[in-house]
């Protein structure tokens, strides 16, 4: 209830609401950063589940990759 009372009138003078406005600005910005980071990490996990590393996808009985990850066609290749 108190919060509702403290909610500013949108037509109030700028200087009286400077603090709450700054807080609101930061919230949108921080939320944007968080969402972007979470979406990026989420999609990286999803793609790593769906896709095979080249050392697995392109390995046959006649051509095996030794020490994947430390050569050009390993998981990081």
């Amino acid at each position, binding site marked *: 209830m108190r919060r509702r009372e403290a909610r500013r009138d949108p*037509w109030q003078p700028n200087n009286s609401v400077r603090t709450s406005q700054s807080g609101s600005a930061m919230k949108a910005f921080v939320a944007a*950063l968080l969402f*972007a980071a979470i979406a*990026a990490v989420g999609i990286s996990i999803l793609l790593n589940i769906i896709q095979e590393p080249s050392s697995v996808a392109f390995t046959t009985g006649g051509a095996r990759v030794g020490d994947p990850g430390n050569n050009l066609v390993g998981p990081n290749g």
Partner: protein
Amino acid sequence: MASLGRFIRLTVGACAFLLVIAASVPCKAQQVNPTASSVNEQQLLQELNRIQGRVSIPDQRSGVLEQPAGRDWREFRNVTLRWIGGITIIGMIAVLVIFYLTRGMVRLESGRSGRTIVRFSAFERFVHWMTATCFIVLAISGLNITFGRPLLLPLVGFEAFSEWSQWAKYAHNYLSFPFTIGVALIFLMWIAGNIPNKVDVDWLKRGGGIVGHDHPPAYRFNAGQKAIYWIVVIGGGAVAVTGYELMFPFYLSGIEGMQLAQIVHSVVAVLFIAAMLGHIYIGTIGMEGAFDAMGTGDVDLNWAKEHHSLWVEEEQAKGHAPSGGTSRPVAAE
């Protein structure tokens, strides 16, 4: 008689020597290039347009050894793109610096009224900042792909450059997804206010208030902002589509298609970066009070009247904004 015999022997010996040398010349030529008459690599490329063989691994595309378009693409990537990117971005920075030094900040001529009007909602600012932060990371990591090797590597060395480039590539790939979401949301959120109309023509004719001290009327988005909107939507869409074509190789096209995608991706990207430098300039140091719109979401009523007078009238008619003139000017902080 004895001298005649010696003369004959010498003559016969000299003739035999010359004969041996003359006979050895074609032999030597044959040893240098015994396959002179066979088909060479250049002829194969001209006839077949590519050189490819058979490979035993599952990916048959790796059998392509040479394709001439690759050379053109490499020339574009290593030379042409660097010139285009360098001129575009450094040129834009130079123009902005010169403009700032000559015009300075566009001031709020009627001063602050002390009353505000809501310009962008929290959700709109959230989408804007998400897209913007992703764009900045994508731009820096993308520029590293083109300019990192000639500019950064000599400064930081192979180890640091390799580590940085690997993380930059991860960021470039994965932050492209929230960036694309942001572009799609921007398109949907603001399409209604960004359809060009006659007011924009007048706004452009009068220099948009940037040149001189005029304040041509505008609705919620003026012609300059509409241009930025369409650059983001079309440019963002283009870099997203071509970027995913490169991120998922051979799903959408072959190697030639991916080379074309890389050309479109990189050229649109450097133009996009230059346009966004202009956008960042005008939203921060270029215009007094402009940052508030995306900072707090509220702008001073006088600012809104100076730059978006028709929008203010609409908001006042809806009861979303205080009516009246430039009341209670307060000192700018």
